[in-house]
């Protein structure tokens, strides 16, 4: 009963609970929160307390003293640490509500990977309920991404969306508000970072952290060779000498480093096109493939997929927020007829 009263003072939310970033869309507003999915926990003996959440916690990653642990509670698009996820959601939900008088109890729509298991979906639902949600709805990520990108999902026309997130890449063919074909591969931004770390260790004999790898990816990472070669100076611990050393990386090296995860994504796209019914494949060939998610910000990734598939590929507007915005649009249709968009356990 108390949740119902508090619900009167809460706005409906759409949450893109991503491996790398959590975004919250507030109904009738817009995206109001975009924070890394990182929580820093301070240990005082047996007592644990949240030290930081979001960007502050992310800055602590890999730089924490013994009594603080910076955790990324999501892994491969699903929950890896249930209680920390719950705490993180609780902070984010209270953050997007202006009033601190009552603990908010909103209706929440959460995006889940299309190939997540029942157990994983239940965990996400429970965690949102534990964070104070009054009701929890689930929507499959590629569907939300397609709505957020502005694709005509309600028409009898095939649309293909590739959502490259932090932990997973979701590929789906959508027509008439439903998913015709979906594929999820556990390759995403995190795998790109790991690939860069591995490449640097193998070729430079130096160890760099995930945060540095991510910075390299964002600044000079590319998915397709181009005439323009970018460079970056990085510092890492030399494994042979045990001393930090400085070295320079260029974009062609990063392209080489990213070959393995990129080829997994390309393979999944090709496989989706193969499995697609011919009428829908014709529509996709005519209009093209849409890329969303943080991975779409990798330079020339559209070019790579376009070259490999021979189809026009476009990057959605504001690809990072597509899923959350799409969830928000679904939320606005929730009271009317959009239950067909939702996913169930």
């Amino acid at each position, binding site marked *: 009963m108390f949740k119902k009263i508090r619900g009167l003072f809460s706005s409906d939310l759409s949450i893109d609970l991503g491996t790398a970033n959590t975004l919250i869309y507030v109904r009738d507003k817009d995206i109001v929160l*975009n924070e890394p999915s990182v929580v820093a926990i301070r240990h005082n003996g047996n007592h644990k307390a949240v030290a930081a959440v979001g960007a502050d916690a992310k800055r602590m990653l890999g730089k924490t003293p013994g009594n603080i642990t910076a955790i990324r509670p999501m892994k491969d698009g699903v929950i890896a640490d249930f209680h920390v996820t719950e705490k993180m959601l609780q902070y984010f939900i209270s953050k997007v509500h202006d009033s601190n008088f009552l603990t908010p109890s909103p209706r929440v729509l959460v995006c889940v990977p299309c190939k997540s298991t029942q157990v994983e979906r239940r965990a996400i639902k429970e965690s949102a309920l534990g964070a104070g949600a009054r009701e929890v709805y689930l929507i499959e990520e590629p569907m939300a991404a397609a709505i957020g990108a502005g694709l005509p999902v309600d028409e009898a026309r095939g649309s293909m969306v590739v959502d490259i997130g932090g932990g997973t890449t979701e590929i789906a063919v959508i027509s008439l508000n439903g998913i015709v074909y979906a594929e999820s591969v556990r390759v995403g931004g995190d795998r790109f970072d790991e690939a860069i770390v591995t490449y640097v260790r193998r070729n430079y004999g130096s160890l760099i952290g995930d945060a540095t790898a991510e910075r390299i990816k964002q600044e000079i990472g590319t998915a397709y060779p181009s005439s323009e070669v970018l460079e970056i100076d990085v510092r890492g611990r030399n494994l042979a000498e045990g001393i930090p050393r400085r070295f320079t990386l260029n974009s062609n090296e990063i392209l080489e480093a990213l070959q393995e995860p990129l080829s997994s994504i390309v393979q999944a796209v090709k496989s989706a096109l193969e499995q697609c019914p011919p009428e829908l494949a014709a529509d996709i060939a005519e209009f093209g493939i849409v890329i969303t998610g943080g991975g779409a910000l990798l330079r020339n990734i559209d070019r790579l997929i376009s070259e490999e598939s021979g189809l026009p590929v476009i990057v959605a507007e504001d690809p990072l927020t597509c899923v959350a915005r799409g969830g928000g649009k679904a939320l606005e249709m929730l009271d009317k007829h959009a239950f067909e968009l939702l996913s169930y356990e």
Partner: protein
Amino acid sequence: MTQEPTSELDSQISGFPGKSLVRAREQLGMSSAQVASELRLSVQQVDAIEAADFSKLPNVVFTRGYIRAYARLVKLDGDELVRQYDQHVGGERQTAPIRTVTRIRPSGSSGPVTFGSLLLLVLVVVGATFWWWQTQYGHDVSAEVSPEPMVAVDTADGETLVFNSAEMEQPQVSEPLLAESVQATGVASAAQVAVTGEAPVGLTEGAATAVDEAQATEAEPAVTQAATAEQTPQPEQTTQPEQGPSESVIATSEGLYLRFSDDCWVTIKDASGKTLFNNLRKAGQELHLKQNGPLNVLLGRVSAISEFTFDGATVDLAPFSNKNVARLRVPVAQ
């Protein structure tokens, strides 16, 4: 979702700089067919972008993507061209500022804190309401629970007696005594027993019948016996104990007399503030208080009063009643 450009907008080609794309392409020495093959589009689609003829292109989402890809190919600013395209088709995109979590609350978790403050607020509201209620009606409550409220009772012979509620027990106890005295004399009739038995309780007895019966018993030799028996349970008589029945007829016109047609709460206090009567009277009952004024009278339900007289004069309650509750002082000042 789909915003099909109108023919009007198509005529305003100046809104979208398709020509700048053509110029940039020609500077790089590319043909539109080459651009089409690079972008995996058809030549017609590339021509449509250059001519700003967006009716031949699909959904705005795809068109934006094509323009951006084309701009990047010919090394122009894609964002600027897309902005001009949005203006051309009449759609402006609004983006809200994105918040960051900068403040972390102490580990005490917000839930219990807000719950506690809410509970405190509820307690304060309840407390304030109770205090207000006490100050408004508390006096009546205390009068109600006071250990010795005064109760006025009419006797059969028209006398008005004032008891403490504790002393109300005594007349009932005296009933067997009375019965014994009647048996002892062996003269008292059943009617007398009924009259004397009812006298201490005496709440519903009509004044007229009481007077009649009192007159009827006058001829009986045992009347003095009954009179003495009556007097035994009455320790506090506010009026003269020796009163003839003829006086009791006049007595109804003396003091305060009320007749009730429905349940009504009555409180009567004398000039010194001493409570003379504070109780509920039921339909058909009457109240006769032989007390000289001035008296303060509170009637909880004016509509339940069928007759209100003081010293034989009928008092009109209408000027004193407010929301069916009357507060007045008798005798009414002229």
